């Protein structure tokens, strides 16, 4: 008998990185790494489960920038080239490690994974992984949802209602265009919620979203089931809180599974470890050493001393950890179900990029977990939030509290000394966009339309929460600052050109090609 529900949610997102003129932008590697290490392995895991007739449910949130990049032919070609290069490197590595059996085993593993990636990416899905996700959705096992248009941190954009409306509407429209279905749920970027955002979700047909635990714990009135059930906002949209305990088991660097000594060490990569001349063709063309994804060591311990990775040991650990995770959820379900009139709902949302990239064995862990839940017990059942809402229509009405899943749980990460300067530009631009759109809508002028459509893209791209986050964490800060400034400058120049009644078409075409997210976007949403 089902005593509790487990809802595993993977949120997949990367900022929109598209530089047609420069194929060597370091940041483009984020996409390459995530495709090889996260998205393909996650797809593969789901396929395995389906092929083995495992009944499971998984919710996957695909952010619109990620969807746009996965379906962009230029980026597809570049990824394929990258993948071919990595396969080439795997051949060289097989040869180089011929007489080192321990390393050779690990190289073989990468070699097989890369070849499998090629088959899935190129042969099976013709370079477009969205087809794979669509197929998973059609199987009924995976529910696809989306996130705000460019992953804007909505609580800090809220000054302009139109800006938040656009982030939601553009995302929903793009999802419909891509998958042909209305998304049931939306991932609020960084779980950033403030009362009122749910009204906009409602207007766009969204039935649920996720909040950090305290978003529900501090809700008004006090929720009956604490974090063990969703609450219904005044708008009617349901808010599902993140479970505290299970989050920690996976995320925490000290207590979490990914820190196990048998798991793969992320920070030892042949891009840094091997002889420069040998590895040169596989690192950045300017000779900058970067990660290649070939990592041969296990975490081993808390010191710099590292031993060679043993795929079998790691696999074993992933199975043990899946068992442990399931056991803890069973205990949770068993305990709380005694007091509740409905099965407790345990929501576990994670960044998809954790699985495979940071936690190399993460996808295996998901596979073990789903199999164990299906074959070994009947106390907990995996479920999607949509399914939950179908089964349980009587949801407590309450207003969630403003919150986010960032450090400290509020806006601190995205609004502090390193990044606070961006908001005056973002707010000002949103205001100008609104004014210009309201004026232009009265005319039937194709130049106004074209220029404002591009201005809207620039505004949306400037609003990505990623830029503020990168500025705060101190990694690739220059890139994040440049992107923010560039989109704002382009936006301002476009608005200026409208007012002057002239524009340099070469320049316009150039930015239309580069910042080409949301081809069917219509500026009128800002009016």
């Amino acid at each position, binding site marked *: 008998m089902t005593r509790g529900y487990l809802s595993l949610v993977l949120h997949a997102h990367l900022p929109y990185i598209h530089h047609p003129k420069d194929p060597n932008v370091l940041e483009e590697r984020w996409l390459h790494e995530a495709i090889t290490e996260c998205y393909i392995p996650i797809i593969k895991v789901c396929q395995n489960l389906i092929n083995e007739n495992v009944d499971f449910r998984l919710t996957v949130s695909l952010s619109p920038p990620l969807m746009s990049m996965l379906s962009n032919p230029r980026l597809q070609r570049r990824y394929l080239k990258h993948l071919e290069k990595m396969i080439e490197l795997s051949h060289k590595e097989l040869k180089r490690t011929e007489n080192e059996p321990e390393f050779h085993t690990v190289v073989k593993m990468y070699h097989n994974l890369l070849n499998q990636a090629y088959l899935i990416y190129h042969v099976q899905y013709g370079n477009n992984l969205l087809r794979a996700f669509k197929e998973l959705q059609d199987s009924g096992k995976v529910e696809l949802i989306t996130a705000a248009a460019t992953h804007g941190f909505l*609580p800090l954009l809220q*000054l302009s209602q139109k800006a938040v409306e656009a982030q939601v509407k553009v995302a929903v429209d793009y999802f419909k265009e891509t998958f042909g279905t209305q998304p049931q749920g939306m991932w609020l970027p960084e779980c950033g919620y403030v009362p009122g955002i749910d009204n906009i979700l409602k207007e766009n047909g969204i039935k649920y979203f996720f909040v950090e*635990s305290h978003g529900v*714990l*501090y809700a*008004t*009135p*006090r*929720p*009956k*089931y*604490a*974090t063990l059930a969703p609450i219904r906002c005044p708008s009617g949209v349901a808010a599902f809180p993140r479970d*505290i305990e299970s*989050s920690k088991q996976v*995320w*925490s*660097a000290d207590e979490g599974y990914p820190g196990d000594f048998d798991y793969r060490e992320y920070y030892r990569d042949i891009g840094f470890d091997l002889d420069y001349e040998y590895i040169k063709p596989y690192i950045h063309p300017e000779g900058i050493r970067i990660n290649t994804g070939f990592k041969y060591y296990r975490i081993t311990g808390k010191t710099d001393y590292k031993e060679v990775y043993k795929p079998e040991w790691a696999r074993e650990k992933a199975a043990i950890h899946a068992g442990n995770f399931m056991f803890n959820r069973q205990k949770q379900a068993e305990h*709380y179900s005694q*007091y*509740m009139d409905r099965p407790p709902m345990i929501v576990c949302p994670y960044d998809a990029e*954790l699985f495979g990239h*940071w936690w190399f064995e993460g996808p295996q862990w998901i596979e073990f977990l789903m199999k164990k839940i299906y074959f070994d017990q009947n106390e907990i059942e995996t479920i999607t939030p949509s399914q939950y809402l179908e089964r349980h229509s009587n949801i*407590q*009405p*309450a207003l969630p*509290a*403003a*919150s986010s899943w*960032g*450090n*400290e*749980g*509020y*806006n601190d990460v995205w609004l*502090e000394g390193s990044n606070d*300067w961006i908001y*005056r530009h973002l*707010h*000002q631009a949103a205001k*100008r966009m609104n*004014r*210009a759109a309201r*004026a*232009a809508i009265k005319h039937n*002028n*194709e*130049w*106004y*339309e*074209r220029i404002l459509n591009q201005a809207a893209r620039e505004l949306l791209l400037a609003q990505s929460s990623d830029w503020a986050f990168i500025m705060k*964490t101190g990694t690739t800060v220059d890139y994040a600052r440049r992107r923010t400034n560039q989109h704002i400058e382009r936006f301002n120049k476009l608005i200026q050109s*409208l*007012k002057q*009644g*002239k*524009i*340099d*078409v*070469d320049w316009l075409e150039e930015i239309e090609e580069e910042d080409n997210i949301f081809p069917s976007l219509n500026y009128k949403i800002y009016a």
Partner: protein
Amino acid sequence: MFSILTAIIVVLVILAGVLLAYHVRTSSPTRKRLNREITREEAGDIINRTSPYKTDMEISEELNEEGGDKLREVTFSPLEFYDEEETEIVLMPVNPSMVFTYWIINEKTVRNFEKEHGPNSWNKSNPVLRLYNLSDNTVEEIPINDFASNWYLKVYNPGKKFKVVLGRRFPCGRFIQLAVSNEAETQRAGISAVIDKDWMPIDECWKIESEGIGLSSPEFMKI
């Protein structure tokens, strides 16, 4: 003599450069050189090469002139709309105990201020922020300086509505208001005392770890 020769060489080099640039530009497959008025269809063709948009606009004459680097510029009737950057102040909650404010001061505001309050009155007065706690009906004045354009304000007050007023205070005590912010609410930071009789909280469900806030993925990545 030598300098004349140098000058001739320089001129020749420039000429060659211009010719080369001209050649590159006109022979590029993605560009067309036109020295006549172009038709609407052609204009559409040019504009639409990399873009799906149709156009019925006039292409400006600059397009067709020599000098490879001239803009391919189009003109259209300017869009008129109000687009002034006004003096304003914005308030944003950071967390339950802190708010952030930034402001923009339009030059016109300074000019009008001096017109109204006398020459140099701007410098003779000091900028201040007046923070209103709208929930508790209290106000606090924070002296700031003219180099700042934003400020973090510690309020230690969750779940309250605030607004902030930017103004200037003269040594005599007179206060002149420049801008009033939006209302912003600090986040709630505790469990609600409000209970819905139909949904009485189950004590056992509330015996969860009080740490409350889990680690986010970004945090994990940092570690």
